[in-house]
């Protein structure tokens, strides 16, 4: 009996230290295949197309053309600052709102927290549409020109993406030990100090998670920019759309798309490095 147990242990020990490569491959293959088929291959096509100008051959000409154009540089700048500003706005607003919902007892706080979940499932253009109904040219409040400026896009993005920051924050706040807040309070700390010195440090991972998500989503946001109808506001996704659909300049569109992807991945990576440095 004891011998059998011994043997079983040895067998199990061996299988754990060196898993059979074949068995592992069987399980890993389907998801890898799906990833290649549905994600990497189309992406590779886009990259490939970006090196094939309409005049034929393989060259960097599309890149040179796109980088030289005023429109692209403007769109690049607009995309980046809008995304950064929106993320900053979402972080500040989301943190304050989550604080109120989590720590200021008011009737209906639970219901509001539930509504945040529902809000996340709304399509982004819906929010823009709602803003148009209120502030647009034929809106309830009256016509406000700012809606068709970058500030309108910023307002819409902050409005729509703030709940994406609040969700992880509320989860983090519910994990926070209220005894810590009480300890801080009886040690003589008032609310602002408690928020700054106790709550904020413990919310950093959640802020990093929510912030990086919102940053990437904002960089790639299309619906909001389209629906505000802001003529002067051209972001990279809008540029891809207009080049590909309106101007039939596929190589140009692919170049912009590649740049957009690189910026998304790059900024996201930078954000993670920075937030990890910050102790999150």
């Amino acid at each position, binding site marked *: 009996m004891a011998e059998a147990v011994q043997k079983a242990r040895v067998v199990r020990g061996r299988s754990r230290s060196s898993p059979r490569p074949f068995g592992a491959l069987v399980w890993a293959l389907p998801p890898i295949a799906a990833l290649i088929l549905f994600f990497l291959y189309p992406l590779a096509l886009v990259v490939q197309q970006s090196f094939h100008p309409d005049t034929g051959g393989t060259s960097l000409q599309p890149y040179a053309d796109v980088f030289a154009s005023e429109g692209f540089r403007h769109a690049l700048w607009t995309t980046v600052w809008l995304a950064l500003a929106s993320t900053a706005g979402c972080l500040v607003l989301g943190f304050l709102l989550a604080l109120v919902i989590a720590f200021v007892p008011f009737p209906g706080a639970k219901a509001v927290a539930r509504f945040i979940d529902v809000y996340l499932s709304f399509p982004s253009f819906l929010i823009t549409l709602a803003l148009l109904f209120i502030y647009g040219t034929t809106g309830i409040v009256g016509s406000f020109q700012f809606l068709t400026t970058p500030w309108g896009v910023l307002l819409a993005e902050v409005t729509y993406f703030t709940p994406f920051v609040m969700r992880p924050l509320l989860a983090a706040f519910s994990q926070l030990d209220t005894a*810590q807040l009480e300890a801080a*309070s*009886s*040690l*003589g*700390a*008032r609310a602002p100090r408690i928020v700054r010195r106790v709550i904020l*440090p413990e919310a950093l991972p959640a802020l990093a998670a929510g912030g990086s998500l919102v940053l990437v989503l904002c960089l790639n946001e299309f619906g909001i920019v389209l629906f505000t109808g802001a003529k002067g506001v051209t972001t990279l996704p809008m540029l891809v759309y207009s080049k590909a659909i309106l101007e039939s300049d596929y190589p140009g569109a692919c170049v912009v798309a590649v740049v957009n992807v690189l910026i998304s991945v790059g900024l996201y990576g930078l954000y993670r490095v920075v937030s990890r440095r910050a102790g999150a």
Partner: protein
Amino acid sequence: MGIRFDSVTVAYDGNVVLDSLDLTVEPGEVMALLGPSGSGKTTALRAVAGFVRPASGRVFLGDRDVTDLPPYRRGIGMVVQQYALFPHLRVDENVAFGLRARKTPKGEIRGRVAEALEMTGMAAYARRFPRELSGGQQQRVAIARALAIRPDVLLLDEPLSALDAQLRSGMLAELARLHRELPDVSMLYVTHDQVEALTLADRIAVMDAAKLRACGTPRQLYRAPTDEFTASFVGGANLVPVTVGTGGVFFAGTEVKVDTDGVIPGAWATLCVRPHLVGLGEGPNQFIGTVTEIQWRGATHRLYVNVDGHTVMADLRELKNPPGLGDSVSLHFASEDAVLLPAGVSHG
């Protein structure tokens, strides 16, 4: 600075969790609030700290009515069961937290932190993070943090409950030493553990079902409890219903000589005898019963003996030849070891 509860009542949604508590903790005194969970003892402590608002009644710190003051203006040190250290701050920064919040001059903070850590024996761990410390060490840091602001009142809410038994007795000695070193600090010590209360407290307030049952020195409560709940909760007790005669009571057909001053002859009462004061064999106040259960506890044997339908417990020095189950045994106790209590639940 003392603490005074002036008919403090606390209710949540109409549920009274603390019923008209009147209690005074003298300056420099250690008062234990002892009771089972849900007895209102933690609520009483939280009312002093400022985390629950009494529905009625006032709370005083010294002569100051603090009932309407927010926690941060009460100047109280508090230590809780789960330590509640700030996980992202190092030990010294945890201890400095209260000093910074109270705008202590910068130059003074370092010395005060060192002093508090020295007092709790944690000076060597100043640069550690809480997660790098054991439970006992974390609780020492929490105590240092509470003491760093030099409070006149220290509130301890089950501070040792999260520690294992061995550590607990060590920490108990530490707390007793701290009390000797800080003779002016009043301590309110909430616990459900009678050993902690008996060891540490100058006085014990026994609480049950939102009410204060009894308050006195550990010796008083142990030697001369005044009600059945206190007798059984503090130290454990045999509580048997008896009828009162003149100069004694009757139990299981035997007359027991006890002090019956102030009790009407013929009335029902409860006889209280501590299990370790019950002896085996012949003696005064002797009665006979059947052994129903026998537990060996190392240094002692505990016998459960059925006497006339009532279970009597006896803690005896380890027996060489313990009786068997169902054996008939004689038990006895000295008259001065028995206390007569007003009839209560044991008459069920």
